[in-house]
């Protein structure tokens, strides 16, 4: 959900705490702070204010674990991408693992923070770039008088091996990663058929458009 208040915070906190102000006893178990006034008696101190509601905040434990795991998982995803020939793997699988890393970060940090980090430009760029590379490599053979994706006509040493690797690594993997993340963002944006909900769904709409563009291709 793009309209989560405080989605993605530092600390595991009162999550179900969207209780009414009248029954918000969770205020009392906060660590007390010593009120030190210097002539501001007209203003209540923070500790005396009944909190209206508490935003859902992410679990610090999950966030830190994901922080540790994510680089290794992404490295593994790229390893799988690069080693399609001699082990189970390849562009599709590697791209899916890389996308899973983004999803993991999204679940740990909240969707808003993830979107700020992994912007729509990157999502679309991955998918479009992958398609362009795929098409480009494929068209070389066609231009040279052969058939589409005829690796043997590529002007590089070991054209069949490196041509196929290039399509796998630079073509299929980014397409899969980009489309998976785009679809996830699209699902996370949800659907809102209420009237006048536009302000809340601006980000959601923006991504919906982007993701739709990808899907149309």
């Amino acid at each position, binding site marked *: *959900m793009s309209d*989560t208040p405080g*989605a993605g915070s530092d600390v595991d906190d009162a*999550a*179900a705490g969207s209780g009414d102000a009248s029954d918000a006893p969770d205020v009392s178990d906060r660590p007390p702070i010593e009120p030190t006034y210097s002539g501001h008696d007209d203003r209540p101190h923070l500790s005396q204010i009944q909190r209206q509601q508490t935003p*859902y905040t992410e679990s610090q434990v*999950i966030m830190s674990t*994901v922080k540790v*795991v994510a680089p290794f*998982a992404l490295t*593994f995803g790229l390893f*799988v991408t690069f080693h399609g020939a001699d*082990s*189970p*793997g390849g562009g599709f*699988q590697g791209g899916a*693992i890389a996308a*899973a890393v983004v*999803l*993991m970060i*999204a*679940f*740990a940090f*909240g*969707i808003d923070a993830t979107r700020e980090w992994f912007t729509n430009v990157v999502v679309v760029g991955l998918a479009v770039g992958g398609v362009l590379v795929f098409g480009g490599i494929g068209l070389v053979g066609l231009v040279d008088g052969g058939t589409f994706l005829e690796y043997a006509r590529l002007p590089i040493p070991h054209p069949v091996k490196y041509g196929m690797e290039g399509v796998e690594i630079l073509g299929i993997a980014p397409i899969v990663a980009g489309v998976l993340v785009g679809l996830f963002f699209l699902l*996370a944006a949800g659907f809102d058929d209420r009237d006048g909900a536009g302000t809340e769904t601006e980000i959601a709409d923006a991504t919906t458009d982007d993701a739709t563009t990808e899907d149309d291709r």
Partner: protein
Amino acid sequence: MSIADLAIAGGYTVGDVLLVGAAGFVVLALGMLYRAVVGPTMQDRVLAVNVLGTNTVVILALLGAALDEPTFLDIAIVYALLNFLMAIAVSKFTVERGGVL
């Protein structure tokens, strides 16, 4: 010769023993499936499926060692990654039914 092909008793190899161990894990997984089906809460099911996933990882690793297929371990790593992803994703989804994604 890998140690998995080593005969230890009655013509059975270490690999055979590992296969039997993997079968044992499958039987135990069936027991856990009970909790995944019965619940009663969503979290119970997530937990049971998470335990099942860990079991699956071990089964994959045992099969990889017994059948001398080291590539099974790559699959096991991916499975472990997805298992973790599943647990945090579904458990978060159960809070306010995905309203806090």
